[in-house]
């Protein structure tokens, strides 16, 4: 007989952003071969399964006992120890040992689940858990557990978690549904629906998307996801606001709607806001327009605030606020934003930033003293840029301030203007230098100052703006190593270069980011040619030979000591390629180096490096060393993992 299974953990409202992570963990519930079907709303985490066995199968285990040679006493002792009658202890197939077959009967799955579910439920990991009953010794969960439904077939699986006894009673929507609903597995989802709970997050998401699109909402996946997990029965409504608020910058209006009120913006044309918004409620409809009216009033107050902040902020220009930055802490040991500003301005000068960039650097942090940014912190930089423009600072300065926090993530674009790029670069670099200097270095998951993001931003700007600053002049020591990590990450994860190509290029020199990219592109282009990987293998061999010989070239090569045949041929080819690659493009140069393969192969085939004559031997090592040094300036071939090695490693 097979049975269906239902577990519903009824809780108080779970933070929306934690629910997907909890679902992943719920999907790991062991259902005796059945695959768990997971659902969730803010108030319930649900696992269902079909066709679970009623009981686990019986098992038999052979236990080896003492040798037969040990006599009857040993046999009796073995039987007694295992609590079986003497005739259950028999000889094994060799006839040398006593064995017994231990029979373990299967168990009722319901009994097993009753034992394991409490631990499973409380074992769910949350980013920030709480305790509520029994203080620190009590259970921990994301929010209090208030009811539990646990059914196997038609029966309740009995257990208790956090003083809540499992049963067959669920609860509907907080206000529209019944507070206590007896359910069976078959009617569970339907009963919830009748009580204004859409169990499936996919169904809620689909309903939200359909309804907000019908009302003209601007596409916003993140907001859809948030609202999917903040509602049990979502429905969209459209509200309006006075068109006069459209005079405020769209950035401000959108931030208020999206981040503070979780509303979708509505556009009348691409990039042009309309005086509407779309809200998603946790009830099916708003027949009297009460919810619409309420939301409109809230939005009006918020927009009024924004207008008030805008007006107040204009009483003092950004330029007049530079001194005020002395009162804004950047970091306790690194001083105020005023001090940071002074450093960044200097750094922008050192990096060759023009007057616009320098002016932008001076004013970039001034919006931190403005009311608008104190209220809408997400808009730092953006507000400064808008104010700079309104205060006649000029387009280049305004744009640089506006974009100087970019890129905010690896997906975000870099600042669009040269001044913006330099200011953004200098700002991040200053933060990194300062924090590293006082030992605030990220480790593991600890990165309170988001230094990884800052460093990633530095690399992204350098790469995508093509800025040829030498990395060892931008940073040194631990910070340089940290930046190298980020370079690897950037080229591997964003530009999809192979890790060994990145290693090869970095091993031959950490120059500038655009140069690293050019060398990588060349390696990538030449790699598929047939000579490349075998040559890489030969270079690895050369490096090992030199390492084993503990060789450092002292004297120059003596052509007279070169043996006629493969050795002289290699030398000639070497000299000719060396001449050819002067001034050649990286790709061209690499192709030519790769063309040395026949001579290199022949050399290793026919010539003994470890010649008896020490001077010949030294001369050969000098030849190889010259080859390695000369042709490793673009990429260190010996870092390339060849196909053969890959196969071997696999």
């Amino acid at each position: 007989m097979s049975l269906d299974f239902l577990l519903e953990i009824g809780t108080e409202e779970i933070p929306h952003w934690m629910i997907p992570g909890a679902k992943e963990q719920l999907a790991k519930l062991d259902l005796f071969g059945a695959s768990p079907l997971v659902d969730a709303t803010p108030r319930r985490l649900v696992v269902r399964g079909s066709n679970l066995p009623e009981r686990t199968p019986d098992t038999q285990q052979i236990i080896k006992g003492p040798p037969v040679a040990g006599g009857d006493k040993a046999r009796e002792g073995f039987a007694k120890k295992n609590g079986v009658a003497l005739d259950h202890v028999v000889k094994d197939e060799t006839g040398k040992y006593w064995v017994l077959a231990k029979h373990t009967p299967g168990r009722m799955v319901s009994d097993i689940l009753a034992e394991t579910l409490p631990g499973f439920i409380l074992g769910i990991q949350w980013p920030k858990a709480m305790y509520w009953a029994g203080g620190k010794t009590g259970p921990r969960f994301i929010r209090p557990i208030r009811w539990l439904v646990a059914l196997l077939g038609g029966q309740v699986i009995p257990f208790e978690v956090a003083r809540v006894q499992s049963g067959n009673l669920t609860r509907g929507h907080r206000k529209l549904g019944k507070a206590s609903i007896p359910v069976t597995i078959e009617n569970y989802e339907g009963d919830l629906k009748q009580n204004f709970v859409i169990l499936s997050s996919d169904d809620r998401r689909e309903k939200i998307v359909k309804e907000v699109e019908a009302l003209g909402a601007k596409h916003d996946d993140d907001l859809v996801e948030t609202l999917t997990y903040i509602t049990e029965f979502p429905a969209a409504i459209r509200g309006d606001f006075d068109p006069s608020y459209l005079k405020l910058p769209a950035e401000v209006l959108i931030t208020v709607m999206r981040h503070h009120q979780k509303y979708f913006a509505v556009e009348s044309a691409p990039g042009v806001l309309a005086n509407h918004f779309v809200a998603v409620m946790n009830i099916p409809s708003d027949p009297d327009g009460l919810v619409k009216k309420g939301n409109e009033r809230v939005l009006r107050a918020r927009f009024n605030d924004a207008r008030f902040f805008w007006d107040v902020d204009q009483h003092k220009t950004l330029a007049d606020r530079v001194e005020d930055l002395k009162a804004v802490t950047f970091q306790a040991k690194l001083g105020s934003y005023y001090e940071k500003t002074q450093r960044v301005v200097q750094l922008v000068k050192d990096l060759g930033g023009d007057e616009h960039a320098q002016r932008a650097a001076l004013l970039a942090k001034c919006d931190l003293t403005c009311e608008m940014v104190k209220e809408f912190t997400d808009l730092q930089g953006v507000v400064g840029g808008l104010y700079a423009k309104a205060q006649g600072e000029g387009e280049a300065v305004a744009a640089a301030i506006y974009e100087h926090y970019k890129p905010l993530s690896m997906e975000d674009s870099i600042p669009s203007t040269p001044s913006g790029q330099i200011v953004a670069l200098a700002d991040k670099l200053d933060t990194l230098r300062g924090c590293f200097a006082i030992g605030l270095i990220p480790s593991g998951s600890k990165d309170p100052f988001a230094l990884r993001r800052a460093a990633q931003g530095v690399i992204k700007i350098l790469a995508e703006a093509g800025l040829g600053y030498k990395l060892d002049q931008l940073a040194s020591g631990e910070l340089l190593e940290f930046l190298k990590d980020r370079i690897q990450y950037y080229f591997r994860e964003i530009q999809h270069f192979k890790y060994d190509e990145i290693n090869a290029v970095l091993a031959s020199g950490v120059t500038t980011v655009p140069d690293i990219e050019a060398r990588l592109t060349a390696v990538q282009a030449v790699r598929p040619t047939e000579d490349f990987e075998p040559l890489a293998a030969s270079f690895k061999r050369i490096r090992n030979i030199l390492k084993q010989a503990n060789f450092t070239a002292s004297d120059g090569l003596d052509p007279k000591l070169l043996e006629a045949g493969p050795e002289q041929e290699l030398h000639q080819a070497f000299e000719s390629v060396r001449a050819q690659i002067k001034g050649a493009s990286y790709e061209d140069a690499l192709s030519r180096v790769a063309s040395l393969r026949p001579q290199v192969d022949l050399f290793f085939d026919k010539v003994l490096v470890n010649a008896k004559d020490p001077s010949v031997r030294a001369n050969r090592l000098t030849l190889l060393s010259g080859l390695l040094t000369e042709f490793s300036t673009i990429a260190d071939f010996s870092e390339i993992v060849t196909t053969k090695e890959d196969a071997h490693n696999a």
Partner: protein
Amino acid sequence: MDSFQDIVFKLKKYWSDRGAIIQEPYDIEVGAGTMCPETFLRVLGPNPYKVAYVQPSRRPADGRYGENPNRLYKHQQLQVILKPTPDDVLEQYLGSLEAIGIDLTKHDLKFEEDNWESPTLGAWGVGWQVMLDGLEITQFTYFQQCGGVDLDLVPAEITYGLERLTAFLQGVESVFDIQWAPGFTYKDVRFADELQMSVFNFETANVNRLWRLLAEHEAECKELHAAYAKYPEKKRFPVLAAYEQVLKCSNLFNLLDARGAISVTERVGVIKRVRDLAVGTAKIWMDQQYSAESGVAEVA
């Protein structure tokens, strides 16, 4: 239409009917209802407690001379503490909204994560901001720690923003248009307070004297702390007086902050001074609660 005071009456009656003590506001300046001893100290220790009170809460830096329709130097909170938290706490809370005339079948109610932390009080908790038709009307917090002490009986703290709630119910745009009592608006009752205290907080408060007062109250508090260990009869020890000094210091800090008198380097240090006083006081209170000699724990 219910007036401001009608709403207060109804909420107090509602919680009184559910067994809460109805307290009057604490008579020392606080920044939030949480800081009153009825919350800060009562959540500590082994004794259950239920209390509700309106607390005028001062935030000097938030003053806007009575010119901003939504910002106030002093606002009124209705604070409810339920220790330990009853299992149906959210149902009880929703009942209180219905008691003041909100039909929750016709409004959009959401619980959005909002965790609370007060570095100066060494306190934190998790909970939500309760959103009604997009308006934040309540802060709901399960206290986890207070005065640096983990709480054994986890209390629920429900803080209603009375001005917002009333403006919502009365359908007015500005808090100053709220009808406080028939014939009297919020502006009639409170505008002068907002205007004059903004002038004082931002313009005229004597900074040097504020610093001196801060030092005086701090000294008083520290002297008390130092005296506790050797104090012969623990239950007579005036830990409540020590806590009043903490509140004085906290308010003076807020005033100095509003005056722009606390420099970057000083700020962290001053917060720590206040926190040390709060944590020290909480420790003594806890000791007094658990001390057999004091007998306080047995009273409940």
